């Protein structure tokens, strides 16, 4: 670990070393550039980082590498699964980011080479960087649930935990399910992406059943001992709106699936479902694993919180769900956006050879729908703690007093403004 003194010394040395370089650096075309930043991943974290590097940094060459042609939002995607929104409502193009001067490359990243400071694409191209921002999201831990990797299981047992084709596919499975069927949703052990997400999904699927298939049932099988977010509010929603429609079972960790019979196997019993929706156990995406950046619990990336720079490799800033969160910091799209702004501000200062912000702040507001119109929130403010070198949650954050329609409208407003903050609208 670096002591405060040596960290300051290192930064001081960095200032001295980089100033002469960047002070007169210029490209062949005569335009001075502060440096090259490659952003990998165009989700809540990556798109925000690309936006703010351009917005605040000016003359920085920003390249965004993203495998998909369009952004699809996980937040609001449970409304598509419940039948209240279309895919088009949660899909946004990257054109506005490009208009701001972000060079976008639609490609798969093969590797990050920290030693050579290069991002290598699957098609063989290499992208050199002065600093990289990696926002890779999560991958599912292979082998953790027996039988899930098989071809039949991959086809029929969906996660829909990365918004996209599976979101719509799960909607179709629910539409095809006969009335009187069972929808079983399994929740992995914490930490996983979007802690309240599974409980919101249970509400919205139950709402669909209530309306269209009233003899059907939602079975919520949680590996954790209790509801992991907005607990009292979800319990109230289950009781007020979905009595007899949602059955919640804590301490049920999925061990195995049988795709042929759509059976989920736990320690003590088996559950047969008509639609089986497995949210698998998660860890930082394979890209950062193979780059050697996963250094906490063999699952997550450790970062220096002032800069979001990896504790394993200098020059690589990792943001979003792949990061091992600070205390009480959930894996949310909102926080990925906030990680991105801390990273962007720090990178600009580092490229300029100027001191970084010593007291960054992050905030989180997360809405969940419990009916088609009513939402609930959890919010928090996180301030950097100089002594402990991490973000600490401030007193005051909390939950809605009750589900309400006004917050339902705020949830849509959140998405509209959030996507604009990512320069996707």
């Amino acid at each position: 670990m670096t002591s405060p003194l040596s960290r300051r010394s290192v930064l001081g040395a960095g200032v001295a070393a980089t100033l002469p370089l960047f002070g007169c650096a210029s490209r062949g075309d005569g335009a001075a550039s502060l440096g090259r930043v490659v952003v990998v991943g165009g989700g809540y974290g990556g798109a925000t980082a690309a936006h703010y590097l351009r917005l605040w940094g000016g003359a920085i060459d920003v390249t965004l590498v993203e495998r998909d042609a369009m952004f699809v939002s996980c937040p609001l995607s449970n409304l598509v699964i419940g039948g209240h929104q279309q895919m088009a409502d949660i899909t946004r193009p990257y054109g506005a980011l490009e208009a701001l001067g972000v060079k976008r490359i639609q490609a798969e990243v093969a590797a990050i080479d920290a030693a050579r400071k290069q991002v290598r694409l699957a098609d063989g191209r290499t992208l050199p960087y002065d600093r990289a921002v990696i926002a890779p999201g999560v991958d599912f831990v292979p082998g953790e649930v027996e039988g899930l990797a098989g071809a039949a299981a991959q086809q029929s047992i969906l996660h829909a935990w990365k918004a996209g084709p599976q979101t719509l596919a799960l909607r179709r499975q629910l539409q095809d399910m006969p009335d009187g069927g069972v929808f079983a949703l399994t929740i992995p052990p914490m930490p996983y992406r979007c802690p309240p997400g599974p409980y919101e999904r249970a509400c919205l699927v139950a709402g669909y059943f209530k309306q269209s298939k009233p003899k059907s049932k939602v079975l919520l099988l949680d590996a954790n001992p209790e509801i992991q977010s907005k607990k009292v509010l979800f319990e109230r929603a289950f009781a007020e709106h979905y009595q007899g429609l949602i059955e919640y079972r804590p301490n049920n960790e999925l061990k195995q699936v049988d795709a042929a019979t759509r059976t989920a196997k736990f320690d003590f019993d088996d559950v047969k479902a008509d639609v089986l929706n497995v949210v698998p156990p998660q860890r930082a995406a394979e890209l950062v694993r193979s780059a050697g950046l996963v250094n906490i619990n063999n699952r997550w990336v450790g970062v220096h919180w002032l800069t979001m720079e990896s504790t394993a490799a200098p020059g690589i800033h990792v943001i979003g769900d792949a990061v091992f969160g600070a205390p009480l910091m959930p894996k949310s799209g909102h926080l990925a956006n906030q990680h991105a702004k801390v990273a962007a501000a720090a990178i600009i200062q580092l490229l300029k050879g100027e001191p970084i912000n010593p007291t960054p702040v992050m905030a989180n507001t997360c809405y969940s729908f419990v009916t088609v119109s009513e939402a609930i929130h959890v919010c928090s403010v996180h301030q950097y703690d100089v002594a402990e070198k991490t973000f600490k949650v401030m007193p005051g954050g909390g939950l809605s007093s009750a589900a309400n329609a006004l917050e339902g409208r705020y949830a849509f407003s959140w998405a509209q403004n959030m996507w604009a903050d990512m320069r996707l609208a």
Partner: protein
Amino acid sequence: MLVARCSQRRRRPDRRPREARTWAATRSLAVAALAGAAALAYAQDAQLGRNLAATCANCHGVDGQARGDLIKPLAGMPAERLITALAGFKSGALPATVMHQIARGYSDEQVRAIAAYYAAQPAAR
């Protein structure tokens, strides 16, 4: 005007945490030769407000330019108005869905920096 602002800033007792003060000293030393300490201090203040205001942008829009008709645009709002509103949220005097909780996470000094930043932004484009 810049100089006046900075010298005013200097006269106030420095109540920042020890490490923050050391940081300030380090950064002043590092760039004094290049940019001049006064200009830098001003830039750092402006950046502090900018960075803090960016924690509001997810809901309130980039630089306070809110989208939609539900959220009050903060761009161009007189600083005193925003400071009073946030104090009202903090104390509970102003009703809110989330702001009574979020406002409590920021110090009065941070609220002033945020308010100054938004006041300086051009009103709704």
